């Protein structure tokens, strides 16, 4: 039944390597979907908990001490792409969405809203 929650959001070609795009999800939710230069895909909340703006898709990608991260474009906090954990604030962790590519389409696994 899990398969039913995978939703296609765009084609892989729609994302330039080493950048991110915003994704609209149901119930006013937004995800930030990233494609790295080595063609790995990550998806986190797009909502930046520090500025309350939906901007993380526009952050710069990189690595810090071995962790793949995105930096908020507003106040520059870093979030781990694998776990959503904020590196500067232990108490802040973003939701992470599993991502896969199926027939050229990028799909996110989205849990229904509580």
């Amino acid at each position: 039944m899990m398969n039913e929650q995978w939703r296609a959001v765009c084609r892989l070609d729609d994302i330039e390597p080493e950048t991110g795009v915003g994704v609209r999800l149901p119930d006013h939710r937004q995800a930030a979907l990233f494609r790295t230069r080595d063609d790995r895909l990550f998806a986190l909340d797009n909502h930046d908990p520090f500025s309350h703006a939906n901007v993380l898709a526009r952050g710069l990608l990189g690595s810090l001490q071995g962790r793949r991260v995105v930096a908020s474009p507003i106040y520059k906090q870093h979030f781990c792409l694998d776990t959503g954990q904020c590196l500067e604030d232990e108490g802040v962790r973003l939701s992470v969405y599993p991502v896969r590519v199926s027939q050229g389409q990028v799909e996110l696994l989205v849990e229904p809203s509580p």
Partner: protein
Amino acid sequence: MNEQKVLLIGHGMVGQRFLEALTARDTGRRYRITVLGEEPRPAYDRVGLTRYFADRDAAALSLLPDGFLEEHGIELKLGTRAEHIDRQARTVRTDSGETLHYDKLVLATGSYPFVPPIDGNDRDHCFVYRTIEDLDAIIAGGEGARVGAVVGGGLLGLEAAKALHDLGLETHVVEFAPRLMAVQVDDAGGGLLRDKIQDLGVTVHTGTGTRAIVDGQDHRHRMDFGDDRHLETDLIVFSAGIRPQDTLARECGLSLGERGGVMIDDHCLTSDPDIYAIGEVALWDNRVFGLVAPGYQMAEAAAAHLDGDREAAFRGADMSTKLKLMGVDVASIGDAHGATPGARSTVFMDQAAGVYKKAVVSECGKKLLGAVLVGDAADYGTLLQLCLNDMDLPGDAAALVAPAAGEAPALGADALPDTAQICSCNNVSKGDLCAAIDAGCHSVGELKAETRASATCGGCAALVKQVLDTELEKRGVAVNNHVCEHFAHSRQELYHLVRVDGIRTFEELLARHGSGHGCDVCKPTVASILASCWNEHVLDPALAGLQDTNDYFMANMQRDGTYSVVPRVPGGEITPDKLIVIGEVARKYDLYTKITGGQRVDLFGARVDQLPAIWRELIDAGFESGHAYGKAMRTVKSCVGSTWCRYGVQDSVAMSIRLEERYRGLRGPHKIKMAVSGCTRECAEAQSKDVGVIATEKGWNLYVCGNGGMRPRHAELFAADLDDDQLIRAIDRFLMFYIRTADRLQRTAAWRENLEGGLDYLKAVILEDSLGLGEELDAQMAHIVETYQCEWRATLADPEKLKRFRHFVNDEGDDDLVYVREREQRRPAYPHERIPVLEDA
């Protein structure tokens, strides 16, 4: 609470230092401090007073840090004079009729200028030279005047003479003694100084006393010197020494010296154990100290003693000085006149070069007792250290002053003992510097902030740097200026690697010189370096992923994630039609509109998906990108200049447009701001910019490395009276040299302050091409100018680039933005305003 009431009378340099010393000790708020200041403004840098003539900026001289009074609960009553001290009741009455109680009283009333008792000394247009108000009066008196005279040829007198000279007056110095600076230099040195000052166009009359001042025939005054000699002048400045401002102390019966000054002991206590005196009002060992460094030492000693440190003491001070008088270096160290029994002098004089040096050596020939330097004071630091630390001379005494065949025997910072006083203004020893270095200060700036070394007159700055370098080297500290964990190189090194290897992508640089995936620090840094070198479009596929969001969307991100748009308005000149287009675009997209400090219009609240349409309309109307989003050349602000202004001497608008169109799109280590003023009134505020240009009768004066913002810095005069082409060539080279050598996010002001060799070095490189880089820098700038393109125009013509401008990859718009209307425009809602809105929805 056992709170003690401390009353300080006088808020000058020494008074402020006392406040800082006492509050630094007073962590428990044991003192309730009140300050009476007679002048209308808080403490300012009287040593740097002449700067006021150049910039007329009283705030720049202020010594009172923002928030200092509030932080320490100090009450400062300005424009308030203390009229009477009642020692029995321990109260002070002010001229506003208030009576203030004290437990401890500190007199820091300073001194007043001595005006010789000459008939006519109280005529109009007779001035003294001590306060900002005095300077304002002199400036006002200079209007319509042609000739000015200064009575007094000492240190302050020559500073006053410089000021009159700069006001454009034919200037005379009238000195009673047979030579200038009689206290600090000897006859031969004074003679040379006189020659040099006369060469600058100031007439010096030594051995000349003024008998009376009467009405002149051709000018306001006539100064009669006796023997039928006289001088006609329009204004007179008395600068014939100072007298302690000791009236209050005299009237309440404190012990004074025969010739004035409040007698103090080693703790700066007066004859009343509840009253201290510090600074120029104080008389210690029958001496008044007319320099700021001893005053600071008294302030520290008094604060420490008041706070219970019974050991704290003032034990006299070194009166050595080094200064630049009208462009002439003059220094005096220790026993300059050879008054010590058995002292012998070695003198070097080169009249052609205008250099005089004298070393006074002890009878045994091994110790330096004093020195006089005129025309070249480069050895001041070395000689002062030899003298103060009683060190054995490194060689023959003659080698100290003569330009030997090789290098003069330099005194390495390493050779100095820990007790060596490096900064006499703030009493900082080499040991203090070492302790601060151990505590983690690894730059001159940090050392200065921590210890205050070189923070007052700056005379020891080179020595501080030397101590820092040798101590860091000793500790094996390699100062790490690596950009980030991905590159073990500084920005300057990366720039060099990009240039030399012809690298055009981040991947290539990372593969050859770095490691990992990069990050939000090194990516924009490298993007900026690549742009400075090759000037390719920021959204080219290989570069887009490196850009910070502002460069990526070519707009400035605001707090709600939308952007602001700034079209270029070169020189701030805009036609009504174009202004209307901006207004219509703003109205159509409901953009919040604000005028910027750089003379353009900022349009806020555009979503990423709206940016291309907005720019299509702006570009169709003839606008282009303003690069407000980039670490790039922003604007060239201008005043209206000779096109309209009745004072303008050059066409500042035309020049600013020429500069803005030349350097538009140039990316650098940080943003770059410029301005052009059409006359010396400086309405464009060019002296607060990275590059400032001020028109003169003959051409343009170029100022560099100014800054507004958090740490304002006045730009420095770099070159004078340039013609148009000389100006542009100098700016070309200056900018490319900055781009080549600065650190990441380092504005020109910070770059300049960290530049070894300072302004002189920069002038040598840029104006004299001392490194032979000139043609290379010219060619690099020419490439940038030739390859300029409007980034927005190029983007609108490229469907691939336009695809990026959407908030959602799978939908349109962004429905999560909430706005509030305020003063007829919209702004993003604050979090507390959003909640009810969302609940309603």
